[in-house]
C-alpha cells in the first residue's frame, strides 16, 4: 500500500502529553512542517514557555531551552542576539504571554526583535487547572470564576494581536484558528509567512492561534471546536494585522 502520510522529521519520535482532543498537537505539527518546508530544521532553536506546552522542547526536533513563566520573549532575545543567523521561536500560552509576561511581549515587539512567537490562545489557564485568563470571554465559567464573572478583564478580553499591531516595527502579526481543515491551512500559511519574515531579516513576527482546551472548558473535543468557532472568533477576529501572507 502506498504511504500517503509521513510525519515531519521536525517532530521528535515521542508521544506528547497533551489531552485528547486538544489542538496544541495540531499547532505543533503546523509549526514543525513549516520549519521543515522552509529548510531550517537544522538551524532552529525552540524556546518553551510555562503552560501546557512546557515540554515543547521535547517535541520540536531541534535545540531547545526553557523559560520562566512569561519570560520566553526575553530568553529568545538572549538566544537570538547570540545566534542572529539561527531561527529562534517561542511557543507560549495566553496566561504566559498576555498576563505574567505582557511586559516582555510588548517590548520584544517594540525592539522589533527578529524572532517568531507562536501564541496559543485558549482563553484559559490549561496547565494549572482551568483558571481565568486575561483572554477569558465574558461570562466564561472557570475554576476561579465559577459564577462566570470575569474580574480580570472587566473591559473585555485583551486582544494581544490588535494591541501589538499599534507598534510600528513588527513585520507580521496575525490571528488564525485551527478548528477545521480550511482554517488549519490558513494557519499554516500565516506561520510560514511569520518564519519567512524572520529568515529574511524583516523583523518581529507573531501568529496568535486560537486553540481549544476541552478538559478545562468541560466539553468534548468536537464541542470545543464548535465553541471556539462560535464564541472565540467573534471576540478575537481572524486575519493579518500586520504583513499578511504573500
Amino acid at each position, binding site marked *: 500500500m502506498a504511504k500517503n502520510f509521513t510525519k515531519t522529521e521536525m517532530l521528535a519520535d515521542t508521544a506528547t502529553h497533551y489531552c485528547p482532543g486538544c489542538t496544541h498537537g495540531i499547532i505543533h505539527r503546523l509549526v514543525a512542517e513549516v520549519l521543515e518546508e522552509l529548510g531550517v530544521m537544522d538551524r532552529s532553536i525552540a524556546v518553551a514557555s510555562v503552560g501546557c506546552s512546557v515540554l515543547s522542547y521535547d517535541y520540536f526536533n531541534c535545540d531547545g531551552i526553557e523559560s520562566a513563566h512569561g519570560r520566553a520573549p526575553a530568553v529568545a532575545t*538572549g*538566544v537570538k542576539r*547570540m545566534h542572529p543567523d*539561527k531561527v529562534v521561536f517561542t511557543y507560549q500560552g495566553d496566561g504566559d504571554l498576555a498576563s505574567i509576561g505582557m511586559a516582555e511581549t510588548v517590548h520584544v515587539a517594540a525592539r522589533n526583535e527578529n524572532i517568531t512567537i507562536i501564541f496559543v490562545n485558549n482563553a484559559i489557564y490549561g496547565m494549572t487547572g482551568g483558571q481565568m485568563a486575561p483572554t477569558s470571554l465574558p461570562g466564561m465559567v472557570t475554576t476561579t470564576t465559577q459564577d462566570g464573572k470575569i474580574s480580570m478583564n472587566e473591559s473585555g478580553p485583551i486582544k494581544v494581536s490588535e494591541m501589538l499591531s499599534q507598534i510600528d516595527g513588527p513585520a507580521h502579526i496575525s490571528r488564525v484558528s485551527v478548528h477545521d481543515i480550511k482554517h488549519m491551512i490558513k494557519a499554516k500559511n500565516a506561520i510560514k509567512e511569520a518564519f519567512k519574515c524572520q529568515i529574511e531579516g524583516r523583523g518581529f513576527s507573531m501568529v496568535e492561534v486560537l486553540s481549544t482546551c476541552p478538559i478545562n472548558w468541560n466539553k468534548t473535543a468536537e464541542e470545543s471546536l464548535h465553541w471556539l468557532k462560535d464564541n472565540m472568533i467573534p471576540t478575537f477576529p481572524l486575519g493579518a494585522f500586520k504583513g499578511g501572507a504573500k
Partner: protein
Amino acid sequence: MKKLMKGNFAIAEAAIQAGCRGFFGYPITPQNELIEYMSVEMPKQDGGVFIQAESEVAAINMVFGASGAGARVMTSSSGPGLSLKQEGISFLAGAELPALIVNIMRAGPGLGGIQPAQADYFQATKGGGHGDYSLLVYAPASVQEAADLTQKAFDRADYYRMPTMILADAVIGQMMEPCEVKSMDTRSDFDKVWAVTGTKAEPGSKKEKRSIVKSLFLNPDELNDHNKKLQRKYQAVAKNEVMFEADSCEDADIVLVAYGTSARICKSAAKITRELGYKVGVFRPITVSPYPYSQLKEAASGCKEVIVVEMSAGQMLLDVKVAMEGSKPISFVGEMGGIMPSPSQVVEAIKKAGRE
C-alpha cells in the same frame, strides 16, 4: 598601568576584558555607571550585545537565554532590582548556566535609599530565590579587587557551570581608586557543547544529541538526582574556592570580622588601637559564599573576643557564629540605612572588649 577608576567602570571594563559579550541591565542607582559604560563599550566588541531591558526580570531572563546559547554574559543591579532577579537566578542555578550577577548594594528594605549598605547578604549567600541552590559570591573591598574578582567570577562560573555574584556595597561601586584592569580572554577555554546553538546533532560528532537547556524534571527521582549533583558541585566549590584575608590575627586578642567597605573601616580601627597597645587582627572573607568557616575559626582560635562589623543589622554575624561554634564571645557593631559604622565606633568596641 594603573588608572584612577570608579568601581562601577572597573567592573564593566574587567568584564569586557574577560570576554563578556552580553550585558543585559536596567538602570538603578548606585550601579548606573556600569550599564552606561557597557552601552558605549559593549557594541564595540566583536559580537558584543548590549540591551537596556524593560525590567530586571527581563534582563536576567535575557542572561538566561544568552548564557544558554553559550555566551559569556552578565547583568548588574542593586537592591530592588536584585529582588526581581531572584526567580531568574534560581533558573540559572537549576539549568546549570554560568553568568555573572553584580549587586552594588544600596540600603533597604523596600525602596530604602541609594546610600551604601550590606543588607543583601542573606539574599546573596542563603539562596534568595526558590529551591536548594547556592551562588559563588565574591565581596571585593577595593576597586582593584572588584576588577580582579569580576574576571575570576566569569572564569569560575564557566568552570562550574553556575551563576556567580559580585556583592559590593555602593562605596566600592562609586569610589575612585587606582586600578589596572588586566586582559583575560578565556572564551575558548570552555567547550560549551551543552549550549543551544541551532546546529545539527550527529551521532559520533562532538554534539551527539540536540541540546536542551532546562531546570524542569517532572520525575521526582530525576529531580532528586539533579539536586544531589548540584549539591556535589557546591561542595566542590566550598572545598576549592574559599578566599579570605587574615591580617595580624596570629597573636590577636581581638579579631575583627568584616567584608567589603566594613573591612576597610576595621583596618583603620585596628591601626588606631594597635598604636594604643591593643592586639587586634582583621579577618576579611573575600568569598562570602562559600564562607571561610574553618579558616575563621582557625584564625581566631587564640583570641579573647570576636567583633563583627557590618553595614546591616547583623547578617554575616550568623555565619561568624556558625564558624566559631560558641568557642569565643562575639559582639557586633553595625549601622543601617546608608550609614557606615565609623572607625571610632569600632575603636570603642575594641576598647570595651579589651576591658572585659
